């Protein structure tokens, strides 16, 4: 177990990563607002370093009602490697669908609780937000990432997240976390980017290179 997690990133590295996440999610919000014509209200991102076994409790503590959520998950691979978890509050799919679907047949909108349209919409919104955010972060840090297809998951959050073999239970993870809300209280949620321990050395070097442009 790595007991020196506080020393994994310096204060300046954390602050730089926070600013890069801020820019990444700002870029993602602009992309999604163009596609779905809803304004995205942003918050200040946070950066945390945790021992891997503490990851689930951390996510649960940050998500108000973690039993009533929809999660879009997507892996990203390259030097910047990890898992994106886009967590929507219950009803987000319906909220987004009704905001978008004024021209749609009412019967379609009132279909089963998690119908095909809602699923498709959450996957699409997730794909755009994660892709734009992770892509921008990678670009700023001089990397190009590949993605797995987005998946909509339910069930046990812990089982799902810890089943990813990119997370070494004996090591640490870096978590980039931001909260967002769509205009008119249509939907809200949060994005967690969990980077694997393998990325840490590269990330520290990439952050130094990023900052050196401004010295």
């Amino acid at each position, binding site marked *: 177990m790595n007991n020196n997690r506080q020393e994994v990133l310096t204060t*300046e590295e954390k*602050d*730089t990563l*926070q*600013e890069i996440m*801020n*820019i*990444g*999610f*700002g*870029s993602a*919000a*602009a992309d999604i*607002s*163009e596609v779905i014509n809803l*304004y*995205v209200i*942003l*918050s*200040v991102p946070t950066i945390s370093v945790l021992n891997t076994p503490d990851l689930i409790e951390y996510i649960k503590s940050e998500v108000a009602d973690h039993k009533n959520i929809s999660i879009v998950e997507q892996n990203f691979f390259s030097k910047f490697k990890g898992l994106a978890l886009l967590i929507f509050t219950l009803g987000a799919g319906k909220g987004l669908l009704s905001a978008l679907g004024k021209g749609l047949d009412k019967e379609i909108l009132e279909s089963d609780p998690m119908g095909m349209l809602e699923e498709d919409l959450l996957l699409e919104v997730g794909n755009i937000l994660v892709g734009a955010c992770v892509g921008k972060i990678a670009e*700023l840090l001089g990397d190009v990432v590949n993605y797995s297809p987005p998946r909509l998951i339910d069930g046990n959050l812990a089982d799902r997240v810890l089943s990813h073999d990119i997370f070494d239970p004996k090591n640490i993870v870096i978590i980039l976390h931001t909260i967002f809300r769509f205009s008119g209280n249509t939907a809200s949620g949060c994005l967690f980017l969990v980077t694997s321990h393998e990325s840490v050395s590269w990330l520290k070097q990439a952050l130094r290179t990023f*900052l050196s442009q*401004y*010295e």
Partner: protein
Amino acid sequence: MQKILIIDDSPVARKILKSCFPKDEQREFFEEGDGTTGLQRFENIHPDITITDLTMPGMGGMEVLERIKTNHPEAIVIVSSADIQPVTRERVISLGAYAFLKKPPSKEIVAKLFADLTQYQRQK
């Protein structure tokens, strides 16, 4: 000497922004990490230019901008933000910001912005 007040909760964002200014010009920078202290500093020093972030803990940059422009309509306020949604830009400009500066800034963009601003101030 030109007084520039930078309001941003991120020390790195402030450092990046300051580094984008030409080194050979006489400027004095003042920094604050949140909207409330930023406003207080504004009232104390009356900067020539204020550059504020939008998304900050506590008082956000939109409120900072609104308060400054309400009390000092002639003040030059530039908004520097990662929130690049068109609606955000429109709100910022409608509240009286001189310009919107997308994060991360570059030396070229900052140089052009300040060249335009100098010309604008001469014409006033």
